[in-house]
């Protein structure tokens, strides 16, 4: 049976302000989806809401993974159910070593039935795997002793996010602008790593991936099976890899012209944002 991450008619508000206006998106395991759209169209909001950020209020619609209602679960439970998000701006946790953090996270996600206080994944087993994965990502072993995202460069943060994805082996991964702020080499490495992790068979199936991006570099090696365009808090168009290429080279003018209603909402949201900034 194919497990599916199904997002249906999702409406999301932040501080009472509606951002998503009925998003529909279905991802099967083994599929790679690209989510594109101009700034402020709601892409990151979708990621945060699906992952369970408490400030993102779902006012309508549903999110299910393999038929299980995700909206009933907090972020921790969603992670244990197999959801993962690589953050655009991951938070620093000073004083907590990457290795300790990863061992807890890995244990929690791989053994969701584990109760707090029970044994973690054996140290030897964990270390061996961590070393391998870090080598693949060309990370200095010393990295494991550094504090989580504390003083990391942009590139280090993104690599650390991919390392977590590799260790946690989620069923579905949302990559929120994982390519932003990376130089060409770093994007290539990230993109190769994501492709490689995505191909691994976990529990009989590959990972389902949602790549939120502005660039085509990440999509070169992670050829999307589907490309979605978000505008004004809605997915207005879905196509194949050629759609991603078109948007990257030609921008969003054609899309705005084709969907005037969504474009109007986008304009309103942008103006409201500006008013807030000015006020």
């Amino acid at each position, binding site marked *: 049976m194919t497990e599916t991450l199904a997002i249906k008619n999702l409406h999301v508000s932040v501080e009472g302000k509606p951002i998503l206006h009925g998003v529909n998106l279905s991802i099967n395991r083994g599929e790679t989806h690209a989510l594109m759209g101009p700034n402020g169209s709601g892409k990151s909001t979708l990621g945060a809401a699906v*992952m*369970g*950020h*408490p*400030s993102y209020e779902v006012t309508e619609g549903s999110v299910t993974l393999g038929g299980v209602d995700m909206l009933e679960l*907090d*972020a*921790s439970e*969603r*992670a*244990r159910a197999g959801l*993962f*998000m690589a*953050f655009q701006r*991951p*938070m620093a*946790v*000073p*004083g*907590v*070593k990457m*290795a*300790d*953090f990863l*061992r*807890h*996270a890995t244990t*929690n*996600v791989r053994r*969701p039935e584990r109760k*707090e*206080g029970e*044994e*973690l994944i054996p*140290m030897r087993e964990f270390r061996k795997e961590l070393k391998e994965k870090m080598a693949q990502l060309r990370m200095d072993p010393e990295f494991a002793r550094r*504090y*989580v995202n504390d003083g990391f460069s942009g590139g280090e943060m993104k690599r650390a996010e991919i390392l*977590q994805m590799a260790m*946690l082996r989620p069923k579905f991964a949302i990559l929120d602008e994982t390519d932003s702020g990376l130089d060409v080499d770093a994007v290539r490495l990230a993109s190769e790593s994501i492709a490689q992790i995505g191909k691994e068979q976990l529990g009989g199936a590959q990972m389902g991936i949602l790549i939120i991006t502005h660039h085509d570099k990440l999509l070169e090696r992670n050829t999307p099976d589907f490309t979605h365009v978000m505008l004004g808090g809605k997915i207005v168009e879905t196509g194949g890899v050629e759609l991603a290429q078109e948007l990257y080279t030609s921008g969003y003018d054609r899309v705005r012209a084709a969907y005037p209603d969504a474009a109007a909402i986008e304009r309103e949201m942008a103006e409201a944002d500006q008013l807030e900034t000015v006020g």
Partner: protein
Amino acid sequence: MTTELLAPTDPLESEINKYDFITQTTGVFKAQRGLNAEVVAQISEMKQEPAWMRQFRLDSLKIFESKPMPKWGGDINIDFNDIFYYLKPTAGQGKTWEDVPQEIKDTFDKLGIPEAEKKYLAGVKAQFESEVVYGSLQQDLGDKGVIFTDTDTALREHPELLRQYFGKIIPPNDNKFAALNSAVWSGGSFIYVPPGVKIDFPLQAYFRINAESMGQFERTLIIVDEGAEVHYVEGCTAPMYTTESLHSAVVEIVVKRNGRCRYTTIQNWANNIYNLVTKRAMAYGDSLMEWIDGNLGSKLTMKYPAVYMMEPGARGEILSIAFSSKGQHQDAGAKLVHCAPNTSGRIISKSISKNGGRSSYRGLCKVEDGAHGSKSSVVCDALILDPDSRSDTYPYIEVDEQDVQIEHEASVSRIGEEQLFYLMSRGMTEAEASSMIVSGFIEPLIKELPMEYAVEMNRLIELQMEGSVG
């Protein structure tokens, strides 16, 4: 090696009440409730002290009676006449663990003291109520002239050292509670490390208040002679009673030229103990004094370990942490006093407040006239876990010299929603995530502790964190 800071191995159920048990003891002698010259004289007599100590106690009592309560810090609401000032639990001190009465042994067994000793300590003292009930020291250290005993025994066996240093670093008129301790002190540790002797493993003492309405007034004196080194570790606990108890210790330390002393305390008192302690070290030429001070529990803690840098090149370092929860006020901090040129000091203070707890940092950086070329830095971080809790900083800086360098940095942070969400998206529960953030916050202290204490400290923090988030 990688430490497992957040992996409690024991079921939490049994951990929660770990320190909250009461041992049934009869006690050999208990002074009458309340405080007067008669009680003080009686304590001195019980201990068969020399006349000078008896007089020192009686003079101190007068100072105590004449001094007003401190006007700053926390609210102290103690009825000094409702406290037992002396309780002798056994007829004598055990030299081997077998000599210690069973009920007291059980107490310390529960606290894990003998195990700790077997594992890595060079010597251990255990104080129960007013008296040290157990003591041991590695043979080879004794042969080198190291003295590690309780202060009462030291007074009998090493009167010349006691007379020279006792009450000289912290005189009775220093403050009201130093005067109180000077009047009714009992037990505590005495350490003398001869010139050039370096003790590789920590010496440990464990203090336990067991009886209700009991005051504990231990008195510790540590003398580190020239070029000598020692690390002393102290732990304190008390069970929960409905009435309040008082812990008022005095700790005096002398570190001579090129000597080095590290004093580590982890205190986890019950939530109705007033913990009012005076700790001060005098550091001489090119010596180093380090205080590592962890404060959990108690109703009110007022404690400011101090280093007086007396000669050029002396250094003082103080690492302090306070964790306050509901109904608790940790008024903790540190003092650095530069009395000589080219001395240097560093204070790192961290506090965590949750469930309406209040933490204050109260610190002093003082440079005396003539102490040119001195440097001090103070870093003070507060972590507040919820809107009901409170944190204050009261830094006092007094500089009477031109050519000095004083730095003070303070930061206050709250556990943010974004940080919690990040950790939870990695499968941590909310409680686990908060606990991880707090563990990270106190990491600079933890890494200074001996391994076993680091594990213990983390476990205590986890217990404090239990139920801190809805």
